[in-house]
């Protein structure tokens, strides 16, 4: 265990490049300076936290920091966002509970739209490359990030994934987050928009149960609508709940299995990709 911050070696995340089979570790808490370089220069006043040392009260021994706990992640996310913008890439962060159908939606989208879009996928799961293999079989270049004990992707994991993936100019990068409606809401990855997927086999009150996620999402996809006749899910109520939390959320109702309703989603992706291209250096 690291003696400075107490972070555990067991928390190591890994990136697997499904194209080459190359597997590499992501340094646990890469954002901690002490892992990357020695203390002799990590406290050099030239970088990020230089301002804070100026606030030591003479006799009090109090250091005022006012530092956001997630600042490192936010900074790395901003870097990812600039990287995407410079390459005119549309990056989407797909979030949902486990089993809502993120991977199935991605597979279907890749297969149906491979002539229209150039897809690259960052797959996040705690363990296994199962989803990565499915995406590869669907025909898109993919890297699998295994978060180990982590319950969400962080910006540095995505950056490492992008290094392997090397998505092309004007492409669409789909980041499939770890199935979890709680933690991924807090961690910006540098995406253009969050797409939250909710399936009708879940509760129609999920938007109000997990408001952080639904408030931070631009799109809600209501998946598995082919099953509506078998469940008690109230579509109207669900959309009402989603709009209560986030009045500007856009909703698509579809079935990734039967293909019903997919065209509106595909159109949105195409339009969003085009607007990224048009807004580059605008």
């Amino acid at each position: 265990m690291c003696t400075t911050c107490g972070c555990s070696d067991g928390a190591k995340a890994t990136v697997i490049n499904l194209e080459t089979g190359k597997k590499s570790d992501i340094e646990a808490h890469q954002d901690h300076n002490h892992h990357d370089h020695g203390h002799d220069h990590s406290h050099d006043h030239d970088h990020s936290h230089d301002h804070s040392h100026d606030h030591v009260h003479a006799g009090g021994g109090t250091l005022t920091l006012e530092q956001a706990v997630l600042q490192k992640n936010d900074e790395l996310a901003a870097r990812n966002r600039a990287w995407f913008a410079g390459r005119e890439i549309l990056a989407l962060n797909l979030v949902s509970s486990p089993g809502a159908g993120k991977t199935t939606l991605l597979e279907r989208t890749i297969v149906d739209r491979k002539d229209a879009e150039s897809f690259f996928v960052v797959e996040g799961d705690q363990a296994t490359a199962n989803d990565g293999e499915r995406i590869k079989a669907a025909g898109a270049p993919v890297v699998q990030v295994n978060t180990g004990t982590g319950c969400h992707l962080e910006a540095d994991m995505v950056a490492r994934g992008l290094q392997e993936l090397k998505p092309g100019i004007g492409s669409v990068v789909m980041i499939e987050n770890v199935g979890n409606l709680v933690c991924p809401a807090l961690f910006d990855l540098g995406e253009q928009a969050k797409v939250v997927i909710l399936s009708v086999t879940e509760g129609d009150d999920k938007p109000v149960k997990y408001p952080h996620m639904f408030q931070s999402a631009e799109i809600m996809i209501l998946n598995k609508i082919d099953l509506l006749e078998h469940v008690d899910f109230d579509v109207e109520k669900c959309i009402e709940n989603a709009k209560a939390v986030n009045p500007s959320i856009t909703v698509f109702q579809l079935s990734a299995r039967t293909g019903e309703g997919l065209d509106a989603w595909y159109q949105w992706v195409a339009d969003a990709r085009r607007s990224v291209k048009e807004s580059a250096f605008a």
Partner: protein
Amino acid sequence: MHELGITQNIVAIVADHALGKPVSRVTLEIGQLAGVMSDAIRFCFDVVAKGTVVEGATLEIREVPARARCSDCGVEFTQQTLYQPCPCGARNFERLSGEELNVKEFEFAETIQQTAAV
């Protein structure tokens, strides 16, 4: 349980700025709608701080109430939930506070304070 990772960040931020000197108190600012449970942070803090300069430090958490300004009528109001509408009924608002997650400050342990003052 993202609170464990967040607590690791908190301890790392303080340890990075403490330059190896023992720390006696850490003050956090957590917004009521930050999506982070103060109790869970407290639970993790002692464990995560163990073996670091932050070990044994008192953790003080200042909760920041959530305030928003209505985009329709301009009134400022307190929010108990992320999506509580304005008293006028409008659901479009700008959040003014309540999502903070900051390390506000920390205090060095007494013995070090004297050497630091030299």
